[in-house]
């Protein structure tokens, strides 16, 4: 059992309310870093000094927030209205168990039983604004004693490993998988340069934390660790999956917010080839990660992105390959160990 992934995915940290996961990560890294601090946005930023070989600062970003819900109203019957924090397919919500507020009150996103549906309702999608979280309260007063408007709600999913420990399911691999990988990097041997590890907030609502972390980091290069949706379900047409689970680390070239630094990307691929670490090019086009903000911070930072492919992103249960997870740690580590200022220097 991968304890790091279990602890991180079972912790709560909906965008804007990342305290629980931040404290957990702080405790997991405190013995391995030279200093750590929390900035105005709530990003946890740790420094691990290098061996002194190169005068260079490399920022490694992994966002620690997850998608979730926010309570907007409590109705007269004690049911909780809510809105989304981060992007959802409404269909993923019905019938799911959530924990609400700092006291982790258990609730369920109620759905009318199929017995009670009219035939015309079978093919309709229930929209989020018609859904309620039911915490078993019988009145507005009873609910208000436990939950306040403005409380966050997060999914409850136990981490499990399947398939002889090669596959994992759980919530929020996007992006606790990236956080776990970054923690492993911090626990390894020192790099030839200073590492600035940023566990960032509010990625899911618009890359907000990374903007501030990158501005403050004054880094010479940046590597972003992510979990990207694997769209690899069976398809009869000859169209490629964007990335496939189990086929290696996904390497970004272009998404809707960035064109990755071509020299950095070439270095990553050469490293993967040389060390036999499986990787796959993520289909260029849509999507966006913290790299979009980091690359443009200050006077610009050469940046690249690596991701673990994950199925069912932004639902209460995701699935990843633990081989891909181990390989992102290996590829990020090998890439950094061989990174020199010359690779990113321009005359």
């Amino acid at each position, binding site marked *: 059992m991968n304890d790091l992934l279990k602890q991180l995915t079972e912790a709560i940290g909906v965008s804007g309310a990342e305290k629980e996961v931040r404290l957990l990560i702080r405790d997991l890294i405190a013995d391995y870093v030279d200093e750590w601090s929390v900035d105005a946005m709530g990003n946890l930023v740790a420094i691990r000094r290098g061996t002194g070989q190169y005068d260079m600062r490399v920022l490694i970003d992994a966002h620690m927030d997850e998608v979730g819900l926010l309570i907007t109203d409590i109705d007269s019957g004690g049911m909780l209205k809510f809105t989304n924090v981060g992007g959802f397919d409404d269909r993923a919500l019905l019938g799911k168990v959530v924990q609400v507020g700092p006291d982790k009150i258990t609730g369920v996103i109620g759905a009318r039983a199929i017995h009670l549906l009219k035939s015309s309702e079978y093919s309709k999608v229930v929209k989020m604004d018609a859904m309620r979280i039911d915490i078993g309260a019988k009145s507005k007063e009873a609910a208000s004693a436990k939950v306040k408007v403005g409380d966050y709600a997060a999914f409850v999913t136990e981490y499990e490993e399947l398939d002889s420990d090669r596959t994992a399911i759980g919530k929020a691999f996007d992006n606790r998988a990236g956080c776990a990988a970054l923690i492993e990097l911090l626990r390894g041997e020192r790099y030839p340069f200073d590492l600035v590890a940023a566990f960032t907030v509010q990625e899911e609502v618009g890359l907000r934390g990374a903007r501030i972390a990158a501005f403050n980091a004054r880094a010479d290069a940046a590597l972003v660790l992510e979990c990207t949706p694997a769209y690899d379900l069976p398809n009869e047409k*000859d*169209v*490629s999956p964007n990335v496939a689970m189990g086929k290696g680390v996904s390497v970004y*070239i*272009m998404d809707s*917010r960035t*064109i*990755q630094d*071509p020299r950095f*990307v070439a270095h990553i691929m050469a490293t993967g080839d040389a060390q036999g670490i499986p990787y796959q*090019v993520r*289909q*260029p*086009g849509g999507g966006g990660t913290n790299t979009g903000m980091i*690359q*443009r911070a*200050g*006077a*610009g*930072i*050469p940046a690249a992105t690596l991701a673990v492919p994950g199925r069912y992103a932004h639902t209460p249960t995701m699935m990843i390959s633990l081989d891909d997870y181990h390989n992102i740690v290996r590829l990020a580590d090998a890439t950094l160990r061989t990174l020199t200022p010359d690779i*990113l220097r*321009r*005359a």
Partner: protein
Amino acid sequence: MENAMNDLIRTLTEAFGPSGFEDAMRDLIRPLVEPYADEITVDSLGNLIVHKNAAAGNKNPQKVMIAAHMDEIGVMVSHITEKGFLRFTNIGGVFSHTLLGGRVRFANGTIGVIGSDRSDDRNAIHPLNKHFIDVGATSREDCPVRVGDSAQFYRPFEVRGRHLTAKSMDDRIGCVVAIEALRRLPEAVAHDLYFVFSVQEEVGTRGAEAAANGIMPDVSIALDVTLTGDVPEARPMDVSLGDGPAIKVKDSGMIAHAGLVRLMRRRAEAAGIEYQLEVLDGGSTDARAMQLAGPGSAAGCISIPCRYVHTPSETVDAGDVEGAIRLLVAVLQGEMDY
């Protein structure tokens, strides 16, 4: 002289440089501007920054950033089929109706022809993802390019009387204006000038934003193309090819600094340069990013009117180009009393 100018336009418009892959452009421009620079740097994102110090003893020198973008729109391979055809995504604003039957060129010289999926309605235009590129391969194995490779649209430069046509006037013609202005400026310039040949404009003015954050200019001027309203059934716009460079007042991304607009008009009038005022409904330039970078700057744009923007046959008028160069030199050499 005119032939030398056309040679420069041909060289720059035919060079390879989709957004994010501007290395060849930078290598071409650098030796052309080196003789006029006090200092040349390339920043993290790849912007080429040519710095020219204000002459010693000058009163009131301002830090002025002039930006012309080196990148062009293009495509990137997103998938290779078993039979060796390429599916692709856009780099910047690529419109489906400009694609079918067009040609693209990859950095390694591979030429591709753009085809599209079967259409049952001859009047319908397929979206981008129903087009493909045929590079003459028969399988994934013998395909000379791979997923993630970028390509430019491929079309030669043509001189058609006063009209000049090429696939990437946007914004290689702005680069030409900047290079030519550097040549014409005297050794002793009035202000602290940063000529920036920027990257990644077409995907969201990303290069100029970073460059401006590094430079922190007081005044910033973009050099870019703008649309015209002078062709049949055009969307109404009071800019025409051949009526002189356009001084931008507003576009969809920024409102130019009103004082800087007045200054540009005064300089044009004093130098006898015919000009037009530009209000552009759709689109923006590096000036948008420069205006808001760091603590902000007084931003404006000298536009070169251009027909058929973001098609393989972008067309400008040679006289407008000359006017833009003269206007830029006149603005940079005077007092910045905006």
